[in-house]
């Protein structure tokens, strides 16, 4: 598939480098200006502490990206070689000749790039707008927002660079750059020990994966003598490579993807990463950086699709799908018991990324199995489309959650301030430890924050896969293709069941989150006093709501068949209407009885069972006399009715050991911390002592022994002249005797 598409000419590809360079150059500029004008009123008001410098840059990057995308969407691949980065000598195995090898640098564009490029540049721009609303009204940030914007643009540069890079090497370089920005931004509130800890944890955990990624890249280089896509995707070259070696190399690289995309067992960093400011969570830890791992796996597609590799790489495909399956269920289960709004979303992110991994695993399996290649495109398209839907929805959800938290903070601040002067009654929650992120403190916000609530509703629906909205189309595709593989290969039953179960669980925890936050009566006085009044924030929320809702049109544009193959091209000959009809027929009236049943079963568990249970447990009507918007009121009413009729007591479950285990995140964090602390740190301390006492000690012993010896020798010098004479005489005698003996 990869090698067959034609290379097309392009005018904008030569300017594509600026998509990366503009934000990268903005980094030092914002930092420098911020350093100079820190605290200056003009800087705070007019430049929004750098926010309004970053915004035009991100808009420019977005426009350039769109121009580029418009040339490549649904077409072939394009490459623009900028130059050689490193050139070096390489001795042939027989030691006779030295050849010249290079690491190049350039731009590479195909259908995967296009998808990711749009997601990244679009969301970077929107979240920049959101940040201006969110960060600049936050009193905690006293004069450090320029740091936020500087690191923000550097991150955007890393993400866009990773997507546009033309080789695995530059993918890795930008990958690490993103890791750095992630580290810096998680630790944005550096004075909080929890933030410092979370930043370290995130960097270290992903670093473990990165080490394997480097090793994988090195192995790949040794197989192909190059890391450029244009070379390694060449089917003739792939044919000369040992499949076992290739599978190992790709497997190593996959571990890197596991770390970056927070999959089991390297998932522990993502929930803690929520210590960062909410825009960071939205951008880096939900919508873009965590997709890097998926992008890397998607990039491997040509290896699986190569005819010479047919049937050789299925093990790796299964591992990818299985890791996805495990994480999907595990993360969803942990999300059941989280009370922190952002943590629920974090686990949801993990779970949804796992879906995409399963989808990619299935696609890779199909591509690698003779006779199944024709389904691979569909599976691959579904996975990529889900990536798109998830990025849009999750970015929006995080921004909406940020909006909620922000307004909760403000409400709390105002109330608290008020309490200091008045003699109003005190609420127990009005202490300094008020948790603005806990859903236990919210409730009934639907009427007070209509835009946020709507955005959250649409986002949740998209993640849950409610029919016709957002993620529905892609999720159906992923589950169907997992099952398609499972029908051929029994091993795949495991991930297939996992994603099926995950669909129901997603329905439950997303509904739970929405209901606990927006439905029911306000649980605290703060929640009762929340208002939606921060500027800038609604812009991205509304935009993304429409994007998520318009997913049905995208489906009609054959996004689920996203590929470079022109027979499935974007806006294919079918046209929008025909495409829509095709998609509807395909999903709702599938001629294959198995998939027909599967579709309705998924809809049933994901859209009825899961939300139904959540309504029964957490539903409730708003405070008397308050009404939300007409599109939300029926849902709230329904939830309150279900809750009244079918509500049940779940305390037995809530107090069970499983629930405790889930609250403890299945003990992974504990074990990892313990391992680090006890094993690694312990060993390190022993080593340090060993180095000091034994290695250095040996030398010191030699030194002290010789010192002692010299002390003994020194005792001969008594200082008495007589002894010296005696010694001189003895010396003469000895010399005489020696002469006697020798001569």
């Amino acid at each position, binding site marked *: 598939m990869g090698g067959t598409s034609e290379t097309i000419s392009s005018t904008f590809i030569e300017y594509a480098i600026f998509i990366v360079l503009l934000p990268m150059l903005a980094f030092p500029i914002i930092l420098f200006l911020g350093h100079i004008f820190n605290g200056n009123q003009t800087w705070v008001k007019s430049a929004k502490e750098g926010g309004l410098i970053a915004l035009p840059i991100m808009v420019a990057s977005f426009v350039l990206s769109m121009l580029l995308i418009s040339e490549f969407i649904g077409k072939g691949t394009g490459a623009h070689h900028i130059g050689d980065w490193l050139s070096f000598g390489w001795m042939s195995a027989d030691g006779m000749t030295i050849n010249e090898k290079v690491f190049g640098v350039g731009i590479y564009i195909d259908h995967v790039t296009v998808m990711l490029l749009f997601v990244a540049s679009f969301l970077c721009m929107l979240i920049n707008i959101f940040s201006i609303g969110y960060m600049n009204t936050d009193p905690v940030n006293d004069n450090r927002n320029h740091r936020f914007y500087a690191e923000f643009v550097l991150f955007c540069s890393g993400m866009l660079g990773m997507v546009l890079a033309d080789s695995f090497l530059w993918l*890795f*370089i930008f990958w690490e750059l993103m890791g750095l920005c992630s580290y810096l931004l998680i630790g944005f509130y550096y004075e909080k020990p929890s933030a410092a800890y979370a930043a370290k944890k995130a960097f270290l955990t992903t670093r473990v994966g990165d080490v394997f990624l480097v090793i994988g890249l090195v192995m790949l280089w*040794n197989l192909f003598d190059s890391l450029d896509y244009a070379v390694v995707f060449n089917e003739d070259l792939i044919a000369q490579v040992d499949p076992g070696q290739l599978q190992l190399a790709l497997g190593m690289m996959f571990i890197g993807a596991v770390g970056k995309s927070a999959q089991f067992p390297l998932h522990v960093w993502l929930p803690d990463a929520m210590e960062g400011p909410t825009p960071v969570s939205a951008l880096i830890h939900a919508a873009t950086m965590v997709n890097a791992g998926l992008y890397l796996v998607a990039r491997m597609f040509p290896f699986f699709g190569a005819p010479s590799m047919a049937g050789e790489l299925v093990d790796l495909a299964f591992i990818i799908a299985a890791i996805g399956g495990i994480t999907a269920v595990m993360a969803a289960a942990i999300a059941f018991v989280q009370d922190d709004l952002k943590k629920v979303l974090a686990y949801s992110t993990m779970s949804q990324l796992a879906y995409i991994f399963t989808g990619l695993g299935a696609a890779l399996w199909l591509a690698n199995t003779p006779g199944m290649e024709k389904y691979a495109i569909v599976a691959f398209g579904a996975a990529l489309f889900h990536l798109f839907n998830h990025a849009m929805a999750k970015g929006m959800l995080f921004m909406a959650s940020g909006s909620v938290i922000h307004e909760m903070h403000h409400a709390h601040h105002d109330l608290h301030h008020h309490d200091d002067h008045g003699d109003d009654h005190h609420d127990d929650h009005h202490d300094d430890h008020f948790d603005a992120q806990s859903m236990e403190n919210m409730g009934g916000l639907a009427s007070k924050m209509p835009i946020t609530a709507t955005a959250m509703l649409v986002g949740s629906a998209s993640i849950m896969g409610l029919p016709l909205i957002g993620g529905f189309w892609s999720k159906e595709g992923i589950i169907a293709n997992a099952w398609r593989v499972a029908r051929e290969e029994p091993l795949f039953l495991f991930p297939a069941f996992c994603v099926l179960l995950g669909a129901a669980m997603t329905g439950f925890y997303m509904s739970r989150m929405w209901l606990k936050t927006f439905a029911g009566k306000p649980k605290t006085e703060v929640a009762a006093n929340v208002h939606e009044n921060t500027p800038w924030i609604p812009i991205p929320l509304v935009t993304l709501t429409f994007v998520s809702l318009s997913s049905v049109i995208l489906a009609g544009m054959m996004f689920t068949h996203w590929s470079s193959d022109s027979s499935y091209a974007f806006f294919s000959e079918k046209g929008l209407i025909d495409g829509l009809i095709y998609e509807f027929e395909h999903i709702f009236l599938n001629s294959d009885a198995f998939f027909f049943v599967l579709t309705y079963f998924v809809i049933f568990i994901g859209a009825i069972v899961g939300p139904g249970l959540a309504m029964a447990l957490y539903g409730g009507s708003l405070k008397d006399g308050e009404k939300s918007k007409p599109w939300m009121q029926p849902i709230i009413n329904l939830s309150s009715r279900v809750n009244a009729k079918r509500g049940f007591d779940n305390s037995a479950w809530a107090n069970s050991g499983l629930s405790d285990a889930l609250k403890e995140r299945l003990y992974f964090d504990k074990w990892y911390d313990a391992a680090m602390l006890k094993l690694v740190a312990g060993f390190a301390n022993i*080593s340090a002592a060993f180095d000091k006492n034994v290695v250095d000690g040996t*030398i010191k012993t030699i030194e002290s022994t010789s010192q002692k010896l010299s002390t003994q020798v020194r005792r001969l010098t008594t200082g008495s002249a007589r002894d010296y004479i005696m010694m001189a005489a003895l010396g003469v005698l000895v010399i005489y005797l020696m002469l006697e003996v020798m001569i």
Partner: protein
Amino acid sequence: MNIDYLSLMVILPILASIFLLILTSRLNPAARAKFDAPVRMASLIISLAMFVLATLMFLGQIGDVGWNDIAFNNFEFQESYVWIEQLGITWTVGVDGLSFPMVWLTTLLMPITIIATWNEKAGATYFPLMLMLGGALIGVFVALDMFMFYVFWELTLIPMFFMILKWGGKDRKYAAQKFFIYTFTASVIMLLGLLTMYFLMDTQTFSMQEMVVQASGANGNGVWLGLEVQKVLFIMLMLGFLVKLPAAPFHTWLPDAHVQAPTGGSMMLAGVMLKMGAYGMFRLPISLFPHALEEFRFIIMIIGLISLVWGAIVCLGQTNLKKMVAYSSVSHMGVILLGIASMQPLGWAAALFMMFAHGIISPMLFAVCGAFKHHYHSMEIGAMRGMAKHSPWLATSMMFGWMASLGLPLLAGFVAELMLMVAYWYAYGWWILLPGLVLAITAAYYLWSMQRTIFEGGEATQPPESLHGEPVPDIDNSEKIAMLLLAAFTILFGIMPWIFLDMMDMWTRSAMAFLGVGGA
């Protein structure tokens, strides 16, 4: 007019430093204090002039040299004078792709070190010693005569010894002695090796260039001096260089020397003096005894691995910031041995670039440590938290240096590590997991120390007791300039490594072809 620029670069700073030392030693203390500032300024000007000279040489403004085409055993700016006629000892200087980056690095670090320690109140003799050190180091790198090489090799010890002894920390006496004894013992063994080699040669010569020709002529059809002799000589020479590098288990002098040394001394020690060991390896044993190198490559690899892994693990167990950085140097120097052992032009180039990159990054690390000590009067990790708030410049410099040292892409260290990994996997396969492990451990100890210094703290945390209630300071302007310069060069060589990598690559390629070694 034909000026011998290289000899000038060696002699000028040494003469200047002797002149300044004599000048100041003749004065009484009160008058000497007045001379502090002029002497400091004079030292800076001389070192800057040398930097400009070296840069002009590189840019082709002085002499027209195609730096990227210098083949193995060819030298540019070569000049030779008779020194001791009876013994055939000459003063011969010249640079090639191996030595020029080191010369340039030395001239770069001298002014930066002087700037970084501008306000240390070290007195009038400190900066002349720095000049002498720089001159001696350049002498080591440009010397093409074995005798001259050895003379400058030992000469570097003298200023460093006095720097540690006079401006060092609490245990400076012990550290200075240890430093001297270790390196001196090693260099005596090396000297014995050199002399043995001299007497065994067919045509006795001190000229390194002629030696290489002689050795390769004999190595072409057989083994020069016989394999056993070659092995013994190889071991003797390598021992001298391994201690200097330092490689495990001879590394324990380094942490002591670093912890006690003054900031400027540490910067030069880590930046250039350690590289003398690696430079010597390439210049003598590797160039002369390729057969022995082939025999010992696995052992060299193991020593490198031990240094790399052991250094990193011990780092993790340190609570002293400077000691941690010192051990990280041990770890990074292991990379050089791995590069040599990979027997690929790429691996050798990785080793050379590691020398260079570490030469830029580690002075920054030690400058940060020095500033930390200077401002907080403590070296313990955790003594000062929340630096990001109190001393943002120092915190930024620290994070930058740490990140560069742990191999963040687009900074100089990454290039060397990447190249090494490629060559290493090719040569030793799954052994690569150990260097991989070290990449993770390196990140762990650096992040751990940052968590306890840069982060946390905030309003609630008190400044460390060692400050005695003084306000928490940030680094001063001279330190800022030094940090910015080092950071700028780290980025420059991270993004454009080819500036020096190309000439290193040419050297390694032609060396391997010339010596007839390498391959799987």
